[in-house]
């Protein structure tokens, strides 16, 4: 997985709550058997009008928001379906971090497997961050758990083990293979009902 240490990037704001994974990536795009190429379908129903044209009102279609890497949004982001394809679509599009009021538990875990940093900040902090100008950079410093815009700083929490994983870009399975003996020992004493 791609590591995450620090990101200096511009941001897009989607000021809505409960942006679910059906909205992030609709089901018609779940049929791909690969992990790549989902970015072009991200937020499909918002990005494209019924006639297939790009919706000029949607933030990610606006000229001054091209190349954004940080998404700022409301509560309960990534709720609904467990589809990791939603995370792949965000990362493939170029997002490195999502700042929200809260995340669904499954989406959060999926994000931690793909180097997409999920940051929880209270509404008061996000209200300030949502005033970000299109050409203004936000800095996310994972080591110090800090989001900065101008001279404003916002601290965020993250589980130390997930933080370590992001910093190193570790693959979970390799990590778990270090516990092979314990897994074997567990299986040896495990009593299955027959």
């Amino acid at each position, binding site marked *: 997985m791609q590591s995450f240490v620090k990101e200096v990037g511009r941001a897009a704001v989607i000021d809505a709550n409960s942006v679910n994974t*059906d909205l992030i990536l609709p089901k018609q795009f*779940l*049929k791909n058997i690969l992990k790549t190429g989902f970015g072009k379908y991200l937020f499909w129903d918002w990005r494209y009008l019924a006639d297939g044209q790009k919706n000029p009102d949607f933030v990610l279609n606006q000229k001054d928001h091209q190349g954004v890497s940080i998404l700022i949004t409301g509560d309960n982001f990534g709720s609904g*379906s467990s589809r990791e394809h939603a995370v792949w679509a965000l990362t493939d599009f170029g997002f490195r971090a999502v700042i929200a009021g809260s995340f669904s538990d499954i989406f959060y875990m*999926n994000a931690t497997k793909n180097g997409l940093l999920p940051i929880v900040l209270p509404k008061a902090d996000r209200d300030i961050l949502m005033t970000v100008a299109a050409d203004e950079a936000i800095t996310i410093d994972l080591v110090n758990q800090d989001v900065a815009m101008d001279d404003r700083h916002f601290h965020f929490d993250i589980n130390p083990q997930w933080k370590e994983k992001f910093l190193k870009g570790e693959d979970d399975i390799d990590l*778990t293979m270090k516990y092979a003996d314990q897994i074997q020992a567990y299986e040896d004493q495990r009593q299955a009902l027959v």
Partner: protein
Amino acid sequence: MSQTLFDQIWNQHVIAGEPGQPQLLYVDLHLVHEVTSPQPFDGLRTSNRRLRRPDLTFATMDHNVPTKNLESVQDEMSRLQMATLEKNCQEFGVDLASVGDEDQGIVHVVGPELGLTQPGKVIVCGDSHTATHGAFGAIAFGIGTSEVEHVMATQTIWQVKPKTMGIKVTGHLPANTYAKDLIMALIAKYGVSFGTGYAIEFFGETIENLSMPERMTICNMCIEAGSKTGMVQPDQTTFDYLAGRKRAPKDMEKAKEVWSQLKTDDEVAFDRLIEFDVSDLKPMVTWGTNPGMAMAVDEKTPAISNSDDQAAYDYIGLHPGMAAEEIPLDYIFIGSCTNSRYEDLVEAAKIMKGKHLAANITAWIVPGSRAIRNRAMKDGLAQIFLDAGCQWREPGCSACLAMNEDKIPAGKHAASTSNRNFVGRQGKGSKTHLASPAMVAAAGIAGHFVDITKIHDTAEAAMGV
């Protein structure tokens, strides 16, 4: 110190890690379907890893499968995804119930039906409605695709232990209200994220009196409350359901002895406790674009209180102050891992028996598994639906998420027994209204939602009951 059912099963499965930190849990059952498995199988192959425990893994096809005609032409991508699962299961030695097989169906319906779902297990699947299996007193939760690969390779999963929430349900379910109304009313009251970060356990006299299918309906929709796992303590109802099933333990006495140990010591052990009385529960209907946007059938659609409400009304094409009867309907869908079990079909058939669909309604009845379909065809249930003018389909997820051809057309409203009324969920531009199977069946006959507590009262009065 007293512990909850969740704590107890969790602790039995910890291999490594400290409380409060990610802990490595052993997985007793990994359920697999065609949509979230191609990438993990591919990952195993490219890393030259084996699938550690094929014997604890079971696969079926549900999300993409055709329900009209098994031979019907699928789009190329669906076909490829299904063929890929066939090939992968063969290569890695995993049991697969493929399209047309007698054990095929929605993964959350066939797991319990086969007796694979059992108390005390840790059960995972790359699907958010895995919470369904918690109805048996298991820790069951949905996982992402990376986690699917991790479980395949190691038979374990890293998780931070969630907090626990007890939901104590009291009171007698009023006539014509169901488990579906109970969980919908809870979500309407507490919102779509009150369970985030929690494992929920339902308990109390009301829950004890529920059948296994009813308990599954309730646990199934925990994810719509934000919780990825819901559970019920196993009891005689659980044991009776499992006894004699194909993949259940043969030595049921021994199993019962083990399973009877699984319980919450004391309700003080929960991190949060909610009490919910169902004595005045009404049939529920959603008006908006998330499951929390719901009302009792005799209420009016609510005032707009924020921009989310406004956006929901704009999409669904309703306005505040409308009665449920006034919601225009075009389709009804009875199916999904929430409400496609035999008992759900029975409730719908009771309403439809001897009647015919209203002229404006197209109806799709999609049983959750081939076993349910076969049983309903044998005992006349299917014929009731056919006589009413419904389409009687093959088992699968179907119009719950509309990945196959079963899409509600843009702009059309559907009364649906499924679990999500999200924007575009049942097809681009589709407008979903969630309700119980009886409510949806009655809406099909009347052509619009009706308060089934009233039609039943009238019918009973006419019969002099």
